[in-house]
């Protein structure tokens, strides 16, 4: 395992910006999650580190060496693709063994067998080892695809939304499993996801990308509690953070044009009067969908709340996040 450093990395495709001037350090043993909407440059970042794309500018350092001139094979990275690209002409076993048999690793046969068996049991695909790769369900294919990365001990694992195609239960199981494997191996992992729970539970660091730029990089708590912009604030949190103009509640410092309130950061019982639109009982909590002066606001309430649509409730922000007209944070 190794530390990976990106220095001023840029890549564009024709006139489209892939990523622009991204610098970040992925410490040895860290689990870094990249967040951002489609087209923000998450996958491009992975492909630049792996060597599948050549950077227009900037450097990639893996384990203390500049890998700019190295091929993907020489960089010693493992990657799980968003599209599970299993080799269709090989069995599951041969798919898992494929990286181990490469001329670079050239693993002895008994070692290959041991590792394949081990990974297959972790991913619960032992009984499918002799199947053709094409004779699997989507979830099984994705597990084999993850397994093909896990049989190796590369400098860094790169994973591009590896769990997005799995059903909820398997996703939860594998999330826990991945985190456990990462912690046990002390593996360095760069992980792309849209899923907030994955980001919050697995990551040691979160990087938020916006139109190819790394806009904030820190621990998940920092990103959640202390976002440096409106954009970052709205990337994490479910239900999403409520954004309203500053004058709705008033009393904000000069320059603040918008405030952001997480659903749990709304004080009930005083302040402005809002109307309840909808109540969602989720079991462990209830969500209240309110309208305040034409602005939709979501907050959480006691699971046994007795509010019904049409009821009126007074709310006030509790430690709101303040943003200026450009969306930058004002503290």
């Amino acid at each position, binding site marked *: 395992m190794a530390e990976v450093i990106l220095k001023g990395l840029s890549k564009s495709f024709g006139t489209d910006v892939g990523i622009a001037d991204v610098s970040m350090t992925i410490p040895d043993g860290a689990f870094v999650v990249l967040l951002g909407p489609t087209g923000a440059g998450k996958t491009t970042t992975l492909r630049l580190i792996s060597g599948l794309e050549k950077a227009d500018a900037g450097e990639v350092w893996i384990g203390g060496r500049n890998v700019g001139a190295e091929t993907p094979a020489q960089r010693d990275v493992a990657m799980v693709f968003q599209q599970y*690209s299993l*080799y269709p002409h090989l069995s599951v076993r041969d798919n898992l063994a494929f990286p181990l048999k*490469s*001329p670079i690793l050239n693993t002895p046969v008994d070692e290959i067998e041991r590792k394949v068996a081990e990974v297959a049991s972790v991913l619960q695909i032992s009984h499918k080892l002799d199947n053709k790769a094409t004779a699997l369900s989507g979830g099984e294919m994705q597990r084999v695809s993850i397994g093909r990365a896990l049989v190796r001990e590369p400098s860094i694992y790169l994973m591009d939304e590896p769990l997005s195609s799995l059903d909820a239960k398997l996703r939860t199981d594998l999330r826990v499993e991945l985190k456990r494997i990462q912690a046990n191996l002390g593996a360095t992992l760069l992980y792309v996801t849209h899923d907030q729970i994955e980001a919050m539970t697995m990551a040691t660091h979160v990087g938020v990308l916006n139109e190819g730029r790394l806009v904030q990089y820190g621990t998940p708590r920092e990103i959640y509690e202390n976002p440096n912009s409106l954009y970052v604030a709205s990337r994490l949190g479910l239900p999403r953070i409520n954004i309203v103009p500053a004058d709705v509640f008033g009393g904000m410092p000069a320059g603040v044009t918008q405030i952001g309130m997480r659903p749990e950061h709304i004080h009930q019982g005083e302040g402005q009067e809002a109307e309840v639109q909808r109540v969602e009982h989720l079991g462990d909590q209830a969500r209240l969908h309110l309208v305040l002066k034409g602005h939709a606001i979501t907050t959480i309430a006691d699971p046994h709340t007795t509010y019904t649509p049409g009821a009126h409730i007074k709310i006030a922000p509790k430690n709101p996040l303040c943003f200026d007209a450009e969306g930058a944070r004002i503290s």
Partner: protein
Amino acid sequence: MSSFSVTEPSKRSKWFAGTLVIVYALITMVPLAWIMLTGFKSPADAISYPPKVLFEPTLEGYVNLFTTRTRQTDEFLAANPPQTWYDEIVREYDMVIAGPSKFGERFLNSVIIGFGSTFLSIFLGTLAAYAFSRFKIPLADDLLFFILSTRMMPPIAVAIPIFLMYRQLGLSDTHLGMILLYTGVNISLAVWLLKGFIDEIPLEYEEAALIDGYTRFQAFYKVVLPQAATGIASTAIFCLIFAWNEYAFAVLLTSGTAQTAPPFIPTIIGVGGLDWPAVAAGATIFLLPVMIFTILLRKHLLRGITFGAVRK
């Protein structure tokens, strides 16, 4: 409830399709059966009218195909009793076997030239198709059109220039010359067909292989080639059929050492009258390699075995 199904064809359409296939098979296979049967007829049965469907089979045609014979005097025949079963067959016409005919050599030439040019077309075609499919090549579309344009004229239109060129280069009547010629004709087909097949193989497989520790060429060899097997097999069959059956250039450019079977078989007619059974025997044997090759590769002709492992 009726057993109506959207995907299952109705009984009537199945019956109709079945009849159509049988009729088509009859039309294409009757001439083949005719040739194969004629090979086992005696010369008299072969030209009898009305044609004989039931006849006494004989290997005369095959013996005549593989041998040259001379007529001998009665004294000579009496002094030299026949040694083998094929001696006996030719004795009926007061002849003895003088030696092997050239058919074996010509057939071997066909095998060398046919399979040699097929291998070369596929080898070069696969590499070129891969390059066109995967790399950014300047003017790729124009180059591809240029390659295709070599197919827009009948090859025989350039027969005379090629004849003169081959004479200058010393390629006339050589195996190499014929292999190069048939490869030249086939390569455009090979590049175009194979490019289509390789285009369909998603790039992700190679990218995965590159990351799994393989070089570009190893990824091509281990991941792309096995998946292109279907396309390679069908392209190879097309190339082989052309090179195997080609007649005009073979007549023009070969006469001795590199002569293939197609120009040789008709020459049998000239030797000792219209020996149709020998011609039919030659045609039957000539058909076999392509038939066997096609049967061996037929499982690769079924598509759909390599697709479906990439989520789109």
